[in-house]
Structures are given as structure tokens and as C-alpha cells.
């Protein structure tokens, strides 16, 4: 039998003679997520070979060669993000998202994600700054994969909609029962009228400044759903032409491991 998944089947010619578990009820899979899932296979190879190549050769390459590889790496990361956002949107629509929460030490977790954006920030001469809280309880109960998508989407936006030579400050604010993470940029900002719609599916601001950036308008939608699933909130403060701060709160895991579905 085929694999018992609600994802796309990828092996067309699985043989039938081996008895597998039959407790499967494949949920209907839409075309978009089937395609998105298929894209992961070549993308995994591409990113795998690229990462090994960069690890092994970065030191001996010319600056131009390094730049070429760095851009290939960035482009393949963008493609991965797009694929993940498509898959996540489809999962949300089909109601098949479940959380896999675990206890996470928030500060190092966020920092690790943040530093991975150094190359992309450098491309646009954007400075990254990370501000850690000095005290407080920062253990959270989160689904690492989902929350990584949230943080990555916010940082990606802060780079995409920033100005060349701008800055991004990621700061973590610890409150009694929650931790608030802020991603602040010095970018194009968002007009008041648009701010209420940002988290809607497919919504993108139509203006000349944002117009040049590609996107599907799914990043913030997915982020909002994931944050809400964790019993948190996500919001924005922004001023046109000055910059934006996207923030989200998550409950601390002191007494609430009740994060489910």
C-alpha cells in the first residue's frame, strides 16, 4: 500500500505484497499541497549539496564565488519558505495542524534562528541586533517547527520591506506570564488603513515601495494562526516610511503545558 498520509503520495509504484498498517484514512489532499510536497524532494537535494559544498569550500573560494553560493543559498531558502507557507496554509484550511509542543529555552532558540539571516541581511546592507532580556523566566512550551516559521516570516519581512542600509532589532521582553518577542525594522512601514488587514490570507499592501518585493501574502496569515494555536497574540505597530515593529506574545510554560491543537 501507499504511505498512509494526508500528504502527497510520492512513490508511485510502491509494491503491494508487504502488509503495512491499514489504520489509515487519507485526508483529501489539495493540488497545491501535493505540488508543494513534491517540490521538497529536489529542494532537499539542492539545499543539501549546497550546504555541504559551502561548508567544505567557503574558506578557499574567491569573494565572488562566495557571493554566488550565498545567493544560491538565499534563493533556495526563499523557495523553502514559500513551500512551507503553502503547505501550512493548506494544512490550516484542511484542519490538520496539530502541535508538537516541547519546552524550549526561548532566548537561545530565537537567537539561533536570527543569526541564520545574517547573509540575507548583509545582501541588503541591513544591520541585525539582538537584545536579550537580563532576567526572567523564559521557558516556553512551543512546537519548534511552527514557531520557527513565525519568527522566520517576521524576520524575512523585516528584511524584505526594509530599506537598504536599514536595521532590524530583535528584542525579547519578559513579563510575568508571557514572553513578548519584537521584530523591529527601519523599513517602509505600513499605512494605518492597511494594518488591520495584514494578517489576512493573501493580503499584500499595494504601493510602490512594497510593490517590488515578491510574495504570496501568506507569511503573516500562517504566523497569526500558529501564534494563536499557542494561545498567544500577534500585532503590529507601524508608521509609514519610518518602520514597523511586529510583536507576538507566548505564555510561559511555568504552569501551562496545556498547549494542544
Amino acid at each position, binding site marked *: 500500500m501507499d504511505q498512509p498520509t494526508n*500528504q502527497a503520495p*510520492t512513490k508511485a509504484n510502491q*509494491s503491494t505484497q*508487504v502488509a503495512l498498517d491499514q489504520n489509515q484514512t487519507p485526508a483529501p489532499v489539495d493540488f497545491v499541497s501535493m505540488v508543494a510536497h513534491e517540490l521538497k524532494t529536489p529542494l532537499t*537535494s539542492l*539545499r*543539501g549539496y549546497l550546504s*555541504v559544498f559551502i*561548508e567544505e569550500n567557503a574558506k578557499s573560494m574567491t569573494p565572488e564565488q562566495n557571493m554566488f553560493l550565498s545567493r544560491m543559498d538565499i534563493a533556495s531558502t526563499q523557495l523553502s519558505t514559500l513551500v512551507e507557507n503553502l503547505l501550512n496554509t493548506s494544512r490550516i484550511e484542511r484542519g490538520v495542524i496539530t502541535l*508538537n509542543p516541547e519546552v524550549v529555552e526561548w532566548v537561545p532558540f530565537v537567537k539561533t534562528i536570527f543569526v541564520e539571516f545574517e547573509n540575507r541581511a548583509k545582501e541588503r546592507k541591513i544591520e541585525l541586533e539582538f537584545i536579550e532580556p537580563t532576567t526572567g523566566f523564559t521557558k516556553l512550551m512551543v512546537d519548534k517547527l511552527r514557531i520557527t516559521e513565525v519568527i522566520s516570516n517576521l524576520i524575512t519581512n523585516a528584511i524584505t520591506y526594509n530599506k537598504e542600509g536599514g536595521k532590524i532589532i530583535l528584542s525579547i521582553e519578559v513579563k510575568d506570564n508571557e514572553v513578548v518577542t519584537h521584530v523591529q525594522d527601519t523599513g517602509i512601514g505600513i499605512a494605518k488603513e492597511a494594518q488591520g488587514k495584514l494578517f489576512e490570507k493573501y493580503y499584500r499592501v499595494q504601493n510602490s515601495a512594497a510593490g517590488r518585493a515578491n510574495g504570496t501574502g501568506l507569511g503573516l496569515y500562517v504566523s497569526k494562526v500558529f501564534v494563536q494555536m499557542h494561545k498567544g497574540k500577534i500585532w503590529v505597530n507601524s508608521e509609514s516610511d519610518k518602520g514597523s515593529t511586529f510583536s507576538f506574545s507566548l505564555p510561559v510554560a511555568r504552569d501551562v503545558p496545556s498547549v494542544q491543537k
Partner: protein
Amino acid sequence: MDEPTTPTLTSNPVSQQPSVTSSAEPKAATGKKVLIIEDDVFIRDLYEMQAKKMGYQVITADNGEEGINKAKANPPDLLLTDLMLPKLDGISIVKMFKSDPTLSKTSCLIITNLEDATKEKEALAVGASAYILKIKNTPSKVVEMFKNYI
């Protein structure tokens, strides 16, 4: 059967020509046998090359049946298997490992792009030690995990 020597891996393997066929370099992981079952040849080669660079002895198979046969003939210290495979899927392979006296102690790692909590639970329930997402982990990272399971 397992010596306590674990490979000391750094996150940045020394540059070296990928040599699929050459015998393993004398690294810390020398001698440890890893069976990789993966039907995508690009991915399989990638993990094979990385594991060899880290000093593992590598056996490969491109489907479940072949993998099980090779494991029985030459029991590995670690199994890295894809989830969706022709002939026998990753979960069934792990089950067979766990029910075979000569293989039951071998750690089994599932590697897949299927992000599915139900599948993951099922895999862990039948005895897999880890459920790893391919696209989220560089090949070096994956191979670096081996030492935790041998």
C-alpha cells in the same frame, strides 16, 4: 558489542574530496557501521559521503527489502532509513529491526520530509529513536546526530 568510543565530530568537516568509494578515513567513528536506506539517489549519496567523511563504514540500500536483507547479513550499528520507500516503508523496517534479536539493539533513525505528527508518533512508538526532517537539517547535522545513538 559497542565500544564507548563515540565519534568526536565538529560541525565543520575538513575539506576533503567526496570519495564515495574510498575506504573511510581514520576518524573517530572508525569501524561503526551505518546502514542507509534511501531511494532517492542524490540524497542517499549525500548522506553516504558525509558519513564516510566522518569515519563511518556505510552500507546502502535503495528499498526496504534490500535494506532488511543487508541488515540481516551484516548487522549495522545504526540504521538511517527514509520513511516512504518502495517495497517496505520505514516504519515496517523499524518494526522488523525491533523484532529481530540480532538487530533489536540497533538505533533506528527515520529521515523524511513528511511533517506529520501522527506518523512521527507512530515511528517513535514502534521503536525509532528519532524522526528527522530532511529539509530542516543539513546532511552534516544529520550525520553528527549518529554519535548520540551508537
